[in-house]
């Protein structure tokens, strides 16, 4: 009875009409030791299927977490640098402002004081320039050299 069933199943199996459950029945039957002699030829086939089910992949896979650099942050950094630049740059321009005097009298005093200081140091400069006259005196005395030249010319003519 069982054998009859198996034979029917085998026929269906060869036509590709068996369900997975029926195929499991066949596999169980052929993996047992009591296979009918005339069905012996099928045994290696099912044995092979069973053996192959156990083969495993043993090589390991190098799973690297790829670190993708986020370029978004570069722009963020650039903007911060720009903002800092603007902020500090402004404080530099502020140093040109020296303040102002409210009282005109006080302002006049201050102006005369500073102008006096300027003229004093200016005069000091011009007084040293006076020495240049000495140089002029020197060059005028060099004029006598011409006399010597005249004399030598007369000598060589003779």
């Amino acid at each position, binding site marked *: 009875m069982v054998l009859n069933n198996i034979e029917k199943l085998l026929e269906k199996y060869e036509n*590709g009409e068996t369900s997975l459950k029926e195929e499991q029945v066949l596999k169980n039957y052929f993996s047992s030791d009591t296979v009918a002699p005339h069905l012996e*030829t099928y045994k290696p086939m099912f044995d092979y299927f069973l053996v192959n089910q156990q*083969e495993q992949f043993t090589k390991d896979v*190098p799973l690297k977490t790829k670190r993708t650099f986020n370029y978004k942050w570069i722009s963020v950094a650039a903007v911060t640098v720009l903002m800092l630049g603007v902020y500090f740059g402004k404080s530099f321009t502020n140093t040109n402002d020296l303040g102002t005097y409210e009282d005109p009298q006080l302002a006049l005093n201050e102006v005369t004081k500073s102008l006096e200081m300027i003229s004093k140091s200016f005069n000091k400069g011009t007084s040293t320039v006076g020495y240049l006259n000495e140089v002029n005196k020197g060059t005028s005395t060099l004029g006598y050299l011409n006399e010597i030249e005249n004399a030598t010319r007369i000598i060589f003519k003779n």
Partner: protein
Amino acid sequence: MTQTEFLKIVMPFKDKVFRLAKRLLISTEEAEDATQEVLLKLWNNKTKIAEYKNVEAFSMTMTKNFCFDKLKSKQAQNLKIVHSNYEAKETGLQKQVELNDSVNWVAKIIEELPEQQRMIIQLRDIEEYDYDEISKMLNMNNTAVRVNLSRARKTIREKLTNTHNYGIK
């Protein structure tokens, strides 16, 4: 997605990917490389994994396509895939089987089948997927899968009976 989450998704079917790759490429090393490649591709696109309806079926299709690409490039180079290591690797597993020789025959017979039939045998008889899944993975219709499967099974049986009865190798 962290590595552990990814592995949790991938673990259940990584062996199936490997076996399908091996069925198509025959050489164990090639199959290992292919599996690694497929898993890495999945990992690199891990952000999209949630969008896939069925990661397993998707990976199987990927494996199929990847192996076909490999085979095509091999043919272009006029190289044959060498599988001299085949028996040595297999013996460990096959020791458990009493009919060692006949099982090897089955392996050889399956190797001789056309790629399509080999894949279908692999997916149906070894990995035990149902027809709908297989047709989705291979992008074929349901009846075509059945027809190919039936042909493959018949060929295997016929060749096995021949070897069994006449001792032809």
